[in-house]
């Protein structure tokens, strides 16, 4: 279902980006990059209300219809305040339990581009994909050897993303 999955840092540079049809990577990169503007707009528009709700899922970002190579893609953005801590498994537990205290709003963005000709994709499926992505990302962050801000090179993360992409086709 997903054709491209990207994790974008707060400063809008890609921490991780991967797309399934490799030959048209540029197009996906552009798509993801363009979507960031919309994300920003959405976040700033919703502003505080959003933070209060703690709703991370921005929903369908914007649909495009392209008739050339890839019929159309749905871009869905997950906006996440991800806690940035570097060490210790205890912290993960703390995070799970007392979420409010430890979360810093890191504004990391997840973007999933899905093939919209795949009409069976439902909203909650996308949500669960994001939840998986978020969990995996948190694991990456918890790796003491991971330097926040670096591109993600975790194998676990990679395989998780692959799984989501395979699931698609």
């Amino acid at each position, binding site marked *: 279902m997903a054709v491209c999955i990207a994790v974008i840092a707060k400063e809008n540079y890609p921490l991780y980006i991967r797309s399934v049809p490799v030959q048209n990577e540029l197009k996906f990169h552009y798509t993801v990059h363009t979507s960031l503007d919309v994300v920003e707009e959405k976040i700033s*528009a919703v502003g505080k209300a959003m933070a209060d709700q703690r709703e991370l899922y921005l929903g369908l970002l914007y649909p495009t*219809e392209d008739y050339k190579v890839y019929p159309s893609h749905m871009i869905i953005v997950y906006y996440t305040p991800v806690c940035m801590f570097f060490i210790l498994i205890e912290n993960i537990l703390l995070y799970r339990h007392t979420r409010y205290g430890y979360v810093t709003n890191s504004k990391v963005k997840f973007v999933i581009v899905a093939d*919209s000709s795949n009409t069976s994709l439902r909203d909650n499926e996308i949500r669960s994909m994001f939840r998986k992505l978020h969990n995996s990302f948190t694991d990456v962050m918890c790796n003491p050897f991971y330097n926040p801000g670096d*591109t993600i090179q975790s194998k676990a993360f990679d395989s998780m993303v692959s799984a989501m992409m395979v699931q698609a086709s």
Partner: protein
Amino acid sequence: MEAHEEKPIIYTMENKPIVTCAGDQSLFTSLYTSLAQQLPRESMEWRRSYGRAPKMIHLEANFVQFKEELLPKDGNRALLTFPFLHIYWTDCCDTEMYKASVKDDMLRWQSTLRLHGSVDWLIVVVESEAKKKNKTNILPRTSIVDKIRNDFCNKQSDRCVVLSDPLKESSRSQDSWSAFLTKLRTLLLMSFTKNLGRFEDDMRTLREKRTEPGWSFCDYFMVQEELAFVFEMLQQFEDALVQYDELDALFTQYVLNFGAGDGANWLGSFCTPVKRWSGLLLRRPIDMEKRELIQRGEASLLDLRSYLFSRQCTLLIFLQRPWEVTQRALELLHNCVQELRLLEVYVVQGALDCWVFLSCLEVLHRIEGCCDRAQLEANCSHTVGLWTYATEKLKSLGYLCGLVAEKVPTSEDLNRTVDLLAGLGEERPETVNSLQSPYKKLNEALSSVEAFEKHYLVSAMKKGDPERAEGFLDDSLRSYVAEGWSLQVTHTRKQMAECQKLLQQTEDYLQTSALLAGDANLTVEERKHFCQEILTFASQPPTVALSMAAFAQLRQMQFSPPGAVVHVGAALQLELRVRCLMPVAMQVEQLAATLHFSLEQGGARGRAGSAQRRAGHGPQGQGDGVVLFPQGSPLAGAGMGASLLPALELYEMQDRSPSDSSLTSTGVVCKNMHLLLRRHDSSASLDTPTAGALPAAVAVDDGAQMLRARDITLQPGDNSILFTAPVQPGSYTLRQLCGSVGRVQFVQSHIYPVVQYEVYSQEPQLTIEPLSDNLLAGIPQKVTFTIATGHYSVKKGDALQLSNTDSMPILHSSCCSATVLSSTGGQHLWRALSIQSSEKVTSISLPPTPPYHTLEFQLEVLCHIPPTPFKPDIERLTNGEVRHRPKNHSHADSGMINIDQKVSIDCPWSIYSTLIALTFYVPFKARHSILSAGKRKYIQVCLQNVSDTNFHLADPVLTERQPTVSMELLSLNVKTQQPVCSQQSVFCLWEMRWAKPLPLCLHCAFSASFAPVSASDTHTAFKPYRYEFQLDRAEISPPSGDQHCRTGALCGLEVSITRQAEPSETEGEEEESTEIEGLRTTKLMYEVVDNSSNWAVCGKSSGVVSMPVAASATHRVQMEVMPLFAGHLPFPNIKVFKYLPHNAVPAIQPDTDSCLENDTISLLDKGLDDQGDTASIRSRGSVHSVGSGEQQRGLPMPRLEPFSPGQVFYWSQGRQVLVLPVTDDHVMEVNVT
């Protein structure tokens, strides 16, 4: 409602629920106006079935005359024309009249209604005072109403309403009106609920049949739309919209199912090829044209969608939700395109683009029509999607019809354009007069290239406006670079390269080309192409300076020697590792590194200083001389975001004052400030270097010193380049790196981290160091001569001239060789060394040594131990005690005695002699003591090894210096050779035998041989050790008198004081010596004291004598003593003091105690003078008790000063004299006491 009524197109005004009126038409006509006004005035609550929320509703009605045709036939479900209520109006107040005509009319009306199953009716009886007045024989008013109720409303009495004087302004009339209206509304709502409920049930039944083969969506559509119409009629737009949304969802579901292979028959009609693509039409409330198509089942998918959306749009606008329209429109357009593809409908190429374009514009127009400008601008985010979509579509149409290409459209293009325009059909009548209609726009845009460009702002680049395009591209490139999107960066750069090529911005173009040629995101062919571009330009005249970053990356730099510090004349090599990013091998004519040269270092600083400084350099200070350049620099290719700025490199800085090295200031210094603090836009100049800055920098550095490497071929990937550094003393810092490929220069404007090397010049130096920790005197010791040649080159025949001293001869060793070390410590060469020695000098001829080498050789030297123990240092007295004076150069901890030996050396490079001090330590310390056993005397010599070396000691010999016959020294030492371990002592013993008289002074010499235990050949290595000492003797003659003294009897005591030694000079200063008739004397006071009360001193017990200052001067004093006990009594003690007369200045500051003592003694003297004749026997204590009070204290008193311990030798110490008891009295006396 008011708001809508102002709108130009109010569709709902025509549709109101129909209420029929029967009976008296004229009566109704008179009441119609006020009825129509008052009915919607109040709202009613509408309770609804299926748990839907109740709503407040304003009712309106369309009152029409009752006709039988109005009543619906069976099966006709048209709700719009359905009469919801039937009213019968009458103002009959006459029973006769009622019975005659009105009742029949009513009955007929009722039967008609019943025939059609309509139960929603109402009878209104209008009463008026006027009528009553006319008719005199009126029945009570109620009777008519009662009759009617009786006749018609058998159970529903509320179906008959009385309206009193409706045209009059009375309270009664008002009340009846409101009652009537309430009734009317209630009944209307009841009718709605009932009829709509029935309708909905029917509709649902129909929907459930959708799986049956004959079912048609279009039919169902019509039915449900009817419901929607009714809701709309009732102003329930929300509900109406729900109906359409349901229809929409149902249709979408069918299409999706079709895609999944579950096709329905009726869908076939929607699969016909699309023939018309005239776009949405939103200006009419109901597009009857399309509705009819649907009704007939002839609508295409686009028709259906268009109609459905137009209805939704209308309702949404009624609901004041225009922004939802735009959102839904975009979804619809995407969806339609998808559905057409899913249903595999044939569409002429470009037709959909036309449709989408027209639709977008239509929606936008519609939205603009109902919003003001401010609102539109505030909500541009909602419309932007549509605009983009429209632009996109127009663009693709442009491409399709050959309107964008540089060349004119071909005939094929024109044909296609005509086809597309044909599909648009005629312009709709609504917009014919509007100049800006979407139809006109599209028509015009497609008609000619110019017009197309007018409508579609072509991407500037394509149409020969590369300047503007470049600006835009530059902006986007910056943001991509800053955010690290590598693919976009590459793509944009490619576009930019095209622009720059068109603009003939050679430098920028080459820079971009260089970046692209090194871009890993491109294919090798593309990269080669850009590389070729550079090479092409490189052969043409204008010199261009480009940033090195695109061309190559510095990886590391390695110094050889690794210290990066060399002396003048040495070779320093720099190996630069460069990763060439070009796809092909590049021929670089010259790679030059400009140097910044400073003289700050120079020879004076020496190597240690510079090495230390380099250690503080941080990244450079890796011991192997390798400087690694940081890789993730922002220009190292795309992909590195702005977040990856170089980290702060901070160093602590401490400034100490030169005098006392106290801290004067401290701080933190940022080493890579130039990277962090540069202006933000200047980072872009790395990609596109500004024209001015770089060439200037290059020009400046032309004259400066450079490291050059010529004609290098840089292969793709890592390359290694060797530079040889020039050697003039100073400190060099690499500043820039510049590679020239033809006329193109690649410049790296900063080299970071700082790369430095130093060239120094050094004076020759000679050092002599002991091989071991301490040099020991007496045995041969090796010393190392180290010559750092510095800039001096040792020629053949150069020699070191050592001036000989007797105390330290230089020992010759047969095979003497020198080591020559290069400054890097790499080479070891053994060279022969010849040593010639004459009486005065020893000449060491040095082997030829190049500059900046170290020459090392070893020589053996021997320092003789001075024969005597150093007189000024140690005072030995006859009692054998050794008295140490504080010495300047005694080894503080071990007590080793050292000898400083100065060596004067003439070096060939200097006219001055070099004085070098060597310190030798004497390994032994000797002490002697005299031991007595009865009358025998022994001399013991203790030899202590104070060094850390173990020795063998052999042949200890003690001899007299002036051998006397009377004296014989008998050795009691058994072994001739014994080991002395470090810090251990050896004792040797000799017995002294003598024939009387003993000499006053005995000069002895102790000598022994020693050799280190480690020495192989014991005998030759033995070195003599001599220790000479002197024994002096003081003598007191034994007391004369009876050998057999008796108690109680007086005996004579002769005290003999003999001066043994001449006073030393220091003592002389202390003592007061007086010259009497040419004879120097010192005054001495003696006192005979017997503390143990063995003796009683008779007469004077003390006195002052003048001793001549000459050795062996003797003074004898006769005294009388009386023994008090019998037996062997020890001799009485005799104390001797220095007697200092009163005028002498006391050398020692007297304290109160000593003053008191003086007093006492002088008192004693006085007493002695007074009582000299009495010669009475008194105890010592009684003398003190006779202290006279008349002693004048004010007089300056003479002083007594005791001798230091060991200065006085009591000859008679320990001697005893035998005293015999006299009589028994003595015993008795004992008893008494």
